[in-house]
């Protein structure tokens, strides 16, 4: 398939002919030079086919010069480093690189999928909506799997990504997106005025397409004149230049994302530890959009054949890489710009002629073509292309504007075509966040109009195509931007710039070039190359009523390929306008959405993967727990010790051991994760009265009180013990998982509704280590820790606290209990955490103290009938539902949720109420979440009357226990209800009260 080499003997501004490198493409070794792209090197090797199209699997070659490429998509890298769908025109080669073509089987030249091309007549746009419906089951089992296998482009990597990514945050005065002539001069002007400037460009070198532009600046060609300025920028202290970086999105308030390809082009960098890619999050006071313009293809019959490319691409191949697309070329255009390509080809010794659809083009470049003896066919179009795997010849036909059929044509041999249908300003960034755009008749394209943010467009991105105007516009924009953000901008000393550029003739729109035979009958005029959308498809969509441009897009998939319509959207609009007799602005545009070009999920995540993905929060005792064989339970962001399994122990055995140790001796729990929020201020007590269902203003300093919280709807949202440290100072305990939520909740009420309160809310959870010392011998252990305060039952009763010292440890000790045993929660600043824990363990050793985990805690509390928010409640549960109506104040005038409790449904009889359950069979443990039914039937559906909220084997009782929310439960004491389980088993259980153990609460007060 490789033909003769096309590397020219001279030229190539980007390549270093002294540095040769070899890489592999589809298993074949390809030679290239440093600076080559896969596209230029493979073309230089004579290969023209790079891939297959999405639907018809037509062979396709390179069309574009950079990120607009939609055909030559390749996969690069092996195994876990494979990256699919890269544009061959952007991928810089390095020695040893492995690249492959995509979407073909078994090979690029012989692709089975190409059968679709033969069937194309039967599968027009949207055909799949009309068929594959019968029989019903076939969609899932037959049609869809075939379609899925045929669709998709490249393949995903295998395994975990071995490379790293990072995020950088940047604030600047002026961000300039795009480093061509306009961007460089705007950045220079802004920086010289004193602004902090960031200049970003997606290419490896600055300059944009200055090297492909006509015009002399101060007697030099544009690129040469620009180079020293561009180089100087890099040296300015208030300037940061990012190349190989794409500004991918513009978001609210000039927040921008940029994506930098740090190491993709050079494995040595990666090996040295560089991230593969970097995402920049940028806040810019002002944005200057200098993103240039993208050339349009022309819709002519079989315009997708390999080696039909944009005129700018052909020109770029020659001037940047010293590669010619072929030896016999046709330039097909409707504007002056493409004439430059003809000159470049001619200069490189390539045979070239020009086909211009215009009747009387009068620009300077047209005249120059005549002078240089390049044949020009005016009023002409390409009406046919011969060759499937490569262009062999074309037919050139006479054309008058609006003509639908070809009358006279002649055949010309050629091996490539360079086409230009005009240029579209790259205004994607402009449109991402609400910028308005307007249609420009002379460009036959949209250009930026107004924008709500501080953003300006300059140069080609603004639709300004002349060099002289671009220069003045860019410099002015840079200066204005700097002035608008600086208190005092430095005065600019404008250098004298003299521009000589050819006068350009007008472009004439050519949305469709008539073909040999009726275009609609077998010829394909491609609009969206990658997705295989043709002019006929767009017209079909119109005919069928998919008139809105969004409908057309979705029905035909126009503009939905990986280039998001960069080269196809406007051409599509042109076709639609002609088909409907409307103007392009009347047709309208589809929404521009970020990103400008696709970028990797890895870069978006940055370093926030693996261990840094929602980092685990650890208490001060974490390592100790680990050493003692703890298994973990994630609770919110925390990891809590679930149970400590000893050697040869099963989890259920260790849990039993831990429970019995608390019930019979003493145990120690790391409760540091409990939410702790300090609430301070003259209105703190009143604030808490509004937050909790019960009253806190009456709480005495030095005492603790259990509180219930509801949301506005009257449903339980959190609970915990709050202690009064001082008249205006409280410490609230929340559930571990609820700490952040409740802190935010308190702030929300303070900041948005009760702004009159003088209260500060400070989350202090991680400032404190807190351990529950629980069990009948807890007091003895505490005594051994040498408290400097009285700890007798009288001096330190249940629900009170002390601030003091335990030996050398400064502590707060709360006598509160979630286990039903005598219990002290000992809190110390987190820095003391581990040593305090060890001291307690040591002091308790003689009493047989053992650590207990969260599962033991849950069983202990369930034996006592204590609820856990989130287990016994689910966001639809009221205080009364869980038997705590008594905790809802009748006296307070208002508190959160009070009014909602008056709603009929919340007061209704027979709501689901919390009850205890004993299974008929003491060893049967009801599954969590099992539902009870009103009437047992032999198969569903059955009416459900409630569900199990917690269920455990209770070592203290020697049998299973459960709690459940059951309709009208409290009135059904003693009743036996049935739980039909999966697999047909039915468990029956008797309804009892919720307290299973120590019903009179003697132990807690002992």
């Amino acid at each position, binding site marked *: 398939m490789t033909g003769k080499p096309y590397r020219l003997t001279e030229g190539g501004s980007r390549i270093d002919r002294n540095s040769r490198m070899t890489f592999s493409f589809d298993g074949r070794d390809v030679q290239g030079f440093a600076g080559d792209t896969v596209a230029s090197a493979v073309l230089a090797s004579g290969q023209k086919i790079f891939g297959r199209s999405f639907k018809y699997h037509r062979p396709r070659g390179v069309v574009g010069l950079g990120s607009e490429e939609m055909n030559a998509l390749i996969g690069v890298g092996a195994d876990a480093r494979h990256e699919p*769908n890269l544009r061959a025109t952007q991928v810089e080669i390095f020695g040893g690189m492995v690249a492959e073509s995509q979407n073909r089987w078994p090979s690029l030249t012989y692709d089975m999928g190409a059968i679709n091309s033969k069937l194309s007549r039967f599968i027009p746009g949207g055909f799949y909506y009309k068929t594959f419906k019968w029989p019903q089951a076939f969609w899932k089992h037959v049609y869809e799997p075939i379609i899925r296998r045929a669709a998709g482009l490249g393949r995903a990597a295998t395994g975990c990504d071995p490379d790293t990514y990072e995020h950088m945050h940047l604030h600047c005065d002026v961000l300039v997106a795009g480093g061509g002539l306009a961007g460089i001069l705007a950045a220079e002007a802004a920086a010289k005025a004193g602004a902090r400037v960031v200049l970003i460009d997606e290419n490896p070198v600055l300059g944009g397409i200055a090297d492909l532009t006509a015009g002399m600046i101060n007697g030099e060609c544009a690129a040469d004149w620009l180079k020293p300025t561009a180089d100087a920028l890099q040296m300015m202290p208030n300037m940061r230049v990012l190349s190989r970086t794409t500004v991918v999105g513009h978001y609210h308030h000039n927040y921008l994302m940029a994506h930098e390809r740090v190491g993709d082009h050079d494995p040595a960098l990666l090996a040295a530890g560089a991230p593969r890619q970097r995402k920049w999050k940028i806040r810019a006071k002002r944005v200057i959009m200098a993103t240039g313009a993208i050339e349009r293809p022309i819709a002519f019959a079989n315009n997708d054949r390999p080696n039909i490319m944009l005129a700018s691409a052909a020109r770029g191949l020659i001037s940047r890489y010293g590669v010619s697309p072929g030896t016999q070329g046709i330039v097909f255009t409707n504007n002056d710009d493409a004439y430059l390509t003809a000159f470049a080809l001619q200069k490189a010794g390539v045979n070239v002629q020009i086909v211009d659809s215009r009747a009387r083009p009068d620009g300077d470049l047209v005249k120059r073509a005549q002078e240089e003896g390049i044949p020009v066919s005016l009023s002409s179009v390409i009406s046919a292309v011969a060759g499937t795997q490569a262009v062999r010849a074309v037919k050139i036909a006479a054309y008058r504007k609006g003509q639908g059929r070809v009358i006279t044509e002649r055949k010309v041999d050629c091996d490539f075509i360079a086409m230009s249908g005009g240029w579209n300003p790259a205004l994607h960034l402009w449109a991402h966040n609400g910028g308005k755009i307007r249609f420009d008749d002379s460009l036959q394209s949209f250009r930026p109009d107004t924008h709500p943010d501080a953003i300006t467009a300059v140069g080609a991105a603004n639709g300004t195509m002349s060099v002289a105007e671009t220069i003045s516009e860019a410099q002015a924009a840079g200066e204005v931007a700097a002035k608008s953000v600086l208190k005092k901008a430095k005065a600019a000393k404008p250098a004298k710039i003299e521009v000589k550029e050819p006068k350009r003739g007008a472009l004439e729109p050519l949305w469709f070039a008539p073909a040999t035979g009726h275009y609609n009958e077998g010829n394909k005029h491609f609009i969206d190359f990658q997705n295989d959308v043709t002019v006929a498809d767009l017209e079909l969509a119109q005919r069928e009523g998919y008139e809105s441009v969004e*409908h057309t897009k*979705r029905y035909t998939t126009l503009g939905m390929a990986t280039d998001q319509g960069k080269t196809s959207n406007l051409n599509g609009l042109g076709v639609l306008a002609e088909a409907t007799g409307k103007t392009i602005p009347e047709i309208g545009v589809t929404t521009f959405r970020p990103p400008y070009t696709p970028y990797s999920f890895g870069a978006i995540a940055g370093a926030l993967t693996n261990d840094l993905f929602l980092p685990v929060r650890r208490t001060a005792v974490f390592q100790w727990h680990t050493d003692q064989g703890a298994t973990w339970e994630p609770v919110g962001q925390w990891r809590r010790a679930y149970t400590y399994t000893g050697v040869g122990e099963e989890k259920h055995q260790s849990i039993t051991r831990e429970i019995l140790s608390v019930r019979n001796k003493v145990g120690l729990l790391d409760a540091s994760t409990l939410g702790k929020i300090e609430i301070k201020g003259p209105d703190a007590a009143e604030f808490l009265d509004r937050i909790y269902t019960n009253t806190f203003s009456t709480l005495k300093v030095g005492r603790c009180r259990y509180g219930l919280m509801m949301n506005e709807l009257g449903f339980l949202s959190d609970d915990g013990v709050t202690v009064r440290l001082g008249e205006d100072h409280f410490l609230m305990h929340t559930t571990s998982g609820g700490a952040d939520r409740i802190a935010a909740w308190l702030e929300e009420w303070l900041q948005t509704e009760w702004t009159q309160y003088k209260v500060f809310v400070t989350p202090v959870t991680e400032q404190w280590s807190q351990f529950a010392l629980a069990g009948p011998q807890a007091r003895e252990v505490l005594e051994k820790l040498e408290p400097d305060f009285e700890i007798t039952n009288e001096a330190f009763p249940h629900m009170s606290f002390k601030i003091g010292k335990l030996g050398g440890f400064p502590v707060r000790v709360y006598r509160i209990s979630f286990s039903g045993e005598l219990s002290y929660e000992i809190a110390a600043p987190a820095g003391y955490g581990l040593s305090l824990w060890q001291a307690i363990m040591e002091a308790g050793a003689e009493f047989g103290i053992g650590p207990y985990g969260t599962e033991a805690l849950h069983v202990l509390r369930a034996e006592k009938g204590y609820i856990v928010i989130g287990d016994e409640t689910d966001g639809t549960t009221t205080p009364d539902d869980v038997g705590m109506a008594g905790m809802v104040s009748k006296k307070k005038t208002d508190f959160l949720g009070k009014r909602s409790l008056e709603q009929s449904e919340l007061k209704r009889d027979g709501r689901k109420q919390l009850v205890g359950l004993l299974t008929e069979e003491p060893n049967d443990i009801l599954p969590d979440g099992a539902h009870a039914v009103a009437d047992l039937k032999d198969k569903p559906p059955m009416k459900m009357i409630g569900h199990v909220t917690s269920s455990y084997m209770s070592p203290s009782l020697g049998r299973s226990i459960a709690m459940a929310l059951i309709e009208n439960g409290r009135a059904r004491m003693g009743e036996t209800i049935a739980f039909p389980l*999966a697999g047909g088993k039915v468990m029956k259980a008797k309804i009892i009260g919720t307290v299973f153990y120590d019903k009179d609460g003697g132990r807690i007060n002992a």
Partner: protein
Amino acid sequence: MLKPRYSIFSLARNAMNYHKDWERAWRSPSPKAEYDAVIVGAGGHGLATAYYLAKNHKMTNIAVVEKGWLGGGNTGRNTTIIRSNYLQDPSIAIYELARTLYEGLSQELNYNVMFSPRGVLMLCQTQHELRAFQRTAHANRLAGLDCRMITPAEVKEIVPIINDDPNCRYPILGAYYQPRGGTGRHDAVAWGYARGADDMGVDIIQNCEVTGIQRDGNQVMGLETSRGVIKTKKVGVVTAGNVSTVMDMAGVRMPIESLCLQALVSEPIKPVIDCVVMANTVHGYMSQSDKGELVIGGGTDPYNNYSQRGSFASLEHTITALIETFPIISRLRMLRHWGGIVDMTGDRSPIIGKTPVDGLYVNCGWGTGGFKAIPGSGWVFADTLANDRPHKIAEAFSMERFTEGRFIDESVAAAVAH
């Protein structure tokens, strides 16, 4: 059906003439002066309502008015997850009705909506989540749904690319699996209903924005629109994220918050995942479209918003979560992201039914999860409108439940309700 039917034969026949004879899928009528009923909003729910009003209730002198293009709201922006394994009985009833209708919808509409029961897995990544789904599983089984809890090993078998490292941040403890759940083609659902309704004489009027609701006393009399006044005594408002503003025109205040929910797709790749996976603990979910794009979504933005453009922070979190769940996606690329304005109720369940104004009906509150409900919602809402009383299944979803406290809280089971 009056329109020529779509089939492989009609495709072949039309191919002979290069597809030049296909008829319009729907007309583009001008509004008549008066209709028996007008639906506001040509999203999936509005179009399905119109279809069933015509089909089941023989009301054909009706119109659907749409401010933009039909299907252009959330119906054309969503990630198309279809499942019915909700927790509360009323939810199960409506979502299962919808799912069942989806199974035969391509045939019913003679339009391939590509309903694909590829299975929906909801991962359990904390004990709490595991217990919550166990509860749902018990409830669903007794309601007669075909769903089950599966083990981490089964999850890995169904989704080979999933991260099954037991030591990762949120290891997979199991999943709740509905094999008959799946995805559909969102546009095709809107287009199929539109074509079907149009065929029965329903006027679908696009580019027609409702700007006012006319009343005589407590009775609706007509609509003011950007294309003139349309008289009618029955109005069904089905405008999703814009429901509050439209209902406000009739003086009805809605218990709705409008938030932006975002979604995104990757570039198309060859198949890597064959079902829908939802990871609610970390807030992300993913499936793969027939075209090959990974379709990804997460949680809503935390602030109220009408702009259809979301915050990057939410997106970033979603992607991070999914790289954790599916490590191979790290080197795939984001192609496009977008947002839709979702209509959230306090209990994450919809509102379907009558309103305080006579002749004014509302169907909204589908929030982040109403694509799956479209056929069922249209079915019961049409019945409600035609008979001026709530359909049996709609009864529970009346607006009064917010003043009565009769919530159908779906947020209790899973944080995300797509």
